């Protein structure tokens, strides 16, 4: 966190000054470790075993927060009798559908009922919507003594019973006593009087089982009662200033603003269908119609009427997986004509840069908007394969448009940070030359497109023509007024144009318009709430008047959990939000994240619907059952409970199960995307992990062109232990070549004890650390680490596995003999793939992702 989020880390150091214990778990001893109380080196890709070990420690020693767990989580819920755990099936859950290559999740559900998840895979199931979803109010059968073998608590206990300190040591390479110290520190710092927080970043997410990493932390935090309370929580540290914002108002292909799902072509055929499949009959998502109608009113204005389903059918529909890697693979197969790249440098920053460039070579046109001519904009000029002479610039037919972009100091707008807080930034200076903001680009592109189609009578052009696109502009470049956009995001009453106060004002009758329901209130009273900068010392310690946090300016989500079931704070020390019986409402330091006047004693009547189903002890009101989900009966594609799977490429067999890897992972079995053996590949004996340095920003577009940052980290380097250096003849300051089946890169060597070899079941595991900031352009150049990484992904969110893979390292600079797989002869022979899956899961259909679904590809190796 100190490495990549130094500004946020100031508060960690502030906490440390006040006595907090800082634990850092990382394969490397980083700048964070340097100031931590406890540093735990771990084998990259083994975190679920480590965290599962903590779950087991909590349960074995009965350290869970009983009142919290019984009342606020689904631990007492009974699960369907047909459910089978990975303990029963050697690494698979019940319901594996070998034909489709995915789980049928019906056996995972609560006994006798089904429930809607707050987030996750609400919409993607195999081909058809889960018809009963959201019809009832959560689990119907409970055992509040937590003793029933079918209850979540007992299932959890069985699931993690083998995740002992011994197994943690053998899987993660963490000595038993060090592990026990972490577990004990965490437990003793949790409870009524104390809370602990988890912070994570892409070290957890970028795995083929990444979502479940975070799920495991969520289980720990729910067991210890650390969610919805001050000092608790799980904080996702974002890689850019507004990555949170870019999921709230998404740049993701499968979401509409405010986490409303993107319509599916297969079944969300009409507005009624779409609402039916996405509205929950219980919990807060019962409000769903209000949000989608207000969104459609914001987008299509007067054209959106009740009669035409609020122009729902104007929305694009998903025909399949259009996530990043799928799209790039489709590009490489010539199925995609054009590509917009805005503020991103995928040939350096994303996995398998060579495959990205191969994809871009097949495009008709490419638009890049960035500060500098990045490697992506100039992939045709001096990419590695062009330097090696394998591809000639004159053979690339792609037309590339490079647009210089304005920096954040050159435009108005908001950043949304990890706390969901929006902070407005004002333009300090006009952007120079042809540089323009994204807002300017998109707005004027829209205007031109509208102009282009203004005479069209074709019904397919109606969405474009009916789109509301009338922001006021200012200045010499006709820059759209960003506050006008913020106002639309906030929402307003259609008749009067008056801004709404918050999402509770939104209606499903078309009388309100709102660009993003969770942001509703950010322009409350016609004031830009995100621009508030009242210093912390001039207000309460929660500092509610600094910026604005969604939803409804709440600084801690689900904060009803900071009070006990009766509505009293768990302790004086940790009091935050409580029930004021005299006033008959919730009150406290923060805006209560609950129905304001719902007393703790409220229980829904039989047959209650909508928000009336939320009982007085349901803090997690976005869930259909209002409880924190220790066990996820649905919403996830790879299991209701996190399970340790090895990365796609590992140095060892899965010590816990016969199933080596996440059975539901996404693979791209292509000749240009070869995988190593599942484990113990003799050609690639070392673990590779990638990361960022403080001195550079992600793929370097913002930093490698700046001398003051470039001089601080002027070259690509790799970090290796003295032991690995001795084994391979590497010398500090010298050169090394790192290879995988995808490609090879060279790097300077930094020999350091900060990346220690680990001992796992008698085997010494060496890890190689690779920062990934450099490319072929800029003031400082170097090879990009991501050339080494394959296309393989977590099934839930399609994120790549770049934090744990295998590779080789040798002394010296690149040889000329080897080539990247996308442009020269395939590097390696076919490798046996079967050992990744149990026979039951091995017959996964090839290419089951993307528009090319089911199509067998040339060079396929399965």
């Amino acid at each position, binding site marked *: 966190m100190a490495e990549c989020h130094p500004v946020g880390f100031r508060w960690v150091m502030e906490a440390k000054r006040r006595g907090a214990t800082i634990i850092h778990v990382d394969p490397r001893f980083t700048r964070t470790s340097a100031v931590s109380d406890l540093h735990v080196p771990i084998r990259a890709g083994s975190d679920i075993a480590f965290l599962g070990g903590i779950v087991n420690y909590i349960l074995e020693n009965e350290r869970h927060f009983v009142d919290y767990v019984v009342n606020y989580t689904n631990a007492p819920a009974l699960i369907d009798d047909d459910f089978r755990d990975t303990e029963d099936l050697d690494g698979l859950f019940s319901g594996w559908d070998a034909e489709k290559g995915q789980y049928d999740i019906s056996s995972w559900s609560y006994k006798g009922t089904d429930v809607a998840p707050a987030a996750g895979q609400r919409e993607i199931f195999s081909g058809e919507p889960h018809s009963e979803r959201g019809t009832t109010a959560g689990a119907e059968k409970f055992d509040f003594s937590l003793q029933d073998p079918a209850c979540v608590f007992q299932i959890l206990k069985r699931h993690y019973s083998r995740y002992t300190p011994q197994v943690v040591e053998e899987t993660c390479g963490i000595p038993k006593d060090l592990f026990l110290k972490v577990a004990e520190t965490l437990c003793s710092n949790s409870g009524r009087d104390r809370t602990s927080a988890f912070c994570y970043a892409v070290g957890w997410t970028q795995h083929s089982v990444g979502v479940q990493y975070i799920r495991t932390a969520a289980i720990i935090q729910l067991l210890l009662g650390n969610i919805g309370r001050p000092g608790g929580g799980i904080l996702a540290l974002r890689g850019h200033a507004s990555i949170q914002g870019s999921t709230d108002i998404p740049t993701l292909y499968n979401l509409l603003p405010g986490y409303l799902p993107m319509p599916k072509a297969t079944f969300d055929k009409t507005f009624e269908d779409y609402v039916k499949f996405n509205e929950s009959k219980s919990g807060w998502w019962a409000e769903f119609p209000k949000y989608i109608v207000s969104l459609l009113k914001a987008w299509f204005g007067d054209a959106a009427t009740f009669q035409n389903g609020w122009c729902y059918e104007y929305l694009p529909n998903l025909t399949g997986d259009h996530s990043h890697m799928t799209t790039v693979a489709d590009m490489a197969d010539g199925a995609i004509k054009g590509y917009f790249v805005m503020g991103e440098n995928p040939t350096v920053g994303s996995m398998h840069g060579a495959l990205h460039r191969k994809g871009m070579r097949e495009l008709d046109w490419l638009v890049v908007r960035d500060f500098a001519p990045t490697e992506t904009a100039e992939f045709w000029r001096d990419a590695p394969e062009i330097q090696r002479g394998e591809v000639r610039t004159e053979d690339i037919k792609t037309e590339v448009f490079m647009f210089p972009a304005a920096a954040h100091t050159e435009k108005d707008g908001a950043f949304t940070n990890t706390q969901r807080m929006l902070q407005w930034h004002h333009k300090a200076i006009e952007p120079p030359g042809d540089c323009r903001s994204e807002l300017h680009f998109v707005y004027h592109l829209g205007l031109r497109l509208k102009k282009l189609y203004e005479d069209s009578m074709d019904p397919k052009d109606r969405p474009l023509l009916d789109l509301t696109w009338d922001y006021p502009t200012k200045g010499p470049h006709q820059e759209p007024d960003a506050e006008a956009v913020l106002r639309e995001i906030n929402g307003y009453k259609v008749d009067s144009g008056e801004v709404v106060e918050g999402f509770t004002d939104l209606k499903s009758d078309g009388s309100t318009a709102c660009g993003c329901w969770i942001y509703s209130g950010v322009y409350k009273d016609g004031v830009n709430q995100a621009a508030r900068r009242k210093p912390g010392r001039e207000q309460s310690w929660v500092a509610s008047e600094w910026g604005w946090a969604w939803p409804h300016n709440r600084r801690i989500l689900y904060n009803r959990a900071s009070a006990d079931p009766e509505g009293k704070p768990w302790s004086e020390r940790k009091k935050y939000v409580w029930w004021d019986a005299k006033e008959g409402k919730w009150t406290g330091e923060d805006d209560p994240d609950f129905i304001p006047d719902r007393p703790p004693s409220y229980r829904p009547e039989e047959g209650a619907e909508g928000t009336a189903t939320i009982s007085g002890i349901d803090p997690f009101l976005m869930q259909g059952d209002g409880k924190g989900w220790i066990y996820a009966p649905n919403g996830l594609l790879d299991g209701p409970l996190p399970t340790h799977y090895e990365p796609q490429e590992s140095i060892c067999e899965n010590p816990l199960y016969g199933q080596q890897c996440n059975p539901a992972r996404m693979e791209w079995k292509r000749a240009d995307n070869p995988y190593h053996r599942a484990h113990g590949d003799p050609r690639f004996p070392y673990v590779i992990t990638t990361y960022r340095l403080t001195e550079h920003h992600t793929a370097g577009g913002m930093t490698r062109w700046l*001398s003051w940052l470039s001089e601080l980290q002027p070259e690509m380097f790799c970090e290796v232990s*003295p032991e690995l250096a001795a084994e391979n003849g590497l010398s*500090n*300051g010298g050169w090394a070549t790192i290879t995988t089946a995808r490609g090879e890169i060279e790097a300077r060597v930094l*020999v*350091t*004890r900060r990346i220690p070899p680990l001992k796992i079941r008698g085997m010494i595991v060496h890890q190689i650390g690779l920062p990934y900031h450099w490319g072929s*352009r800029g003031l400082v150049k170097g090879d990009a680490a991501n050339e080494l990484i394959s296309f393989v992904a977590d099934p839930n969110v399609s994120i790549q596995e770049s934090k744990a893979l295998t590779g080789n390292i040798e002394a010296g600079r690149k040889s000329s003999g080897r080539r990247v797989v996308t442009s020269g002869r395939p590097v390696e022979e076919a490798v046996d793939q079967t050992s990744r899956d149990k026979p039951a899961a091995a017959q996964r259909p090839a290419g089951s992702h993307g528009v090319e679904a089911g199509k067998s590809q040339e060079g396929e190796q399965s």
Partner: protein
Amino acid sequence: MTEVSSGTGDGRWIDPSMGMLIGEAADQKVPEGRTERGHSEGAAPLPTWDREPEARRSDDITYYDLPVLKEPVWMWVVPAYFYVGGLAGAAAVLGAVAQGSSSSRRLVNRCRWTATGAIVAGTGLLIYDLGRKERFLNMLRVFRRTSPMSVGSWVLAASGGANSSAAVLAGTDGLLRSLGDLSGAGAGLLGMPLAGYTAVLLSNSAVPAWKEARKTLPFLFVSSAINAAASLLDLMELDDDEARVVKRFGTAGRAAELLSGVMVEREIAGIERTARAYKEGVAGSLWRGGESLAVTSLILGVLPGHSRLKRFATGVTGSAAAAAAKFAVFHAGKASARDPKATFESQRSRAAH
């Protein structure tokens, strides 16, 4: 679009058409054409550390062997100035003393002109070493008694005035001659600090090899100055009487130079790495070479006989010895400043005393 279009390539990467260059160091000069990758400038490029970052013993601590101190930025002209400045001082002293006796007037004149010439040359050398030569007059902008360089600048300036007026007035008679002698006497008085202040200038520093020799270094510098002056005079045509004066003066200087060299060695003997700076490398060679030359010159000087050749050989070896001493001390200082352990050791040993 080329890479440099987004900046000036001067290491600041600020396009002056967009950004204002008004920061404290905005006018700091950088070399032209530094946009090529790897082109380092400013501070010398750092060496690549070829050991493990933590490969060190607890009693052998340095920060990657990087120096603590900045190496003196002075170039060869500075020790060359030490030589000519000392020469001027000693010549002025000899001239002043000689004018008060019945000895040769020609010798007095020679001393005055020698001193004047040496001061002019020395001033030129000093200006040549300045980073901003056009600002040489700033040396006389203030008088700062804590700064031996400031004190020395004033001494040098005054010496220049005294010696040159004495020299100009040397051929006159009457009042002017008396005025000349007064100037000569003043030059003689100034000659004493002029010959020795440069030793304080060096020892008034953080450089181990200089500061640790601060008590004896002035003796070495002054005796080397005597040697330098006498040796230069030895190269000139002298009558017997003059030659005897010069021989005595030179012999005293050479003997003293050898003696004070030993004193310097003894002063720093307890401080191993500082002493090493005088024994190894360029400094060590110069130091030993200077000693041999001084011995040679001393012996040649006292050998019987009045041949011109003998005096010439004495003068050449003596001059070389005097210059070598100054260059040796200069380079020993540079070497010790580069050695972080010399710095640590010198400070730790001081604290222990």
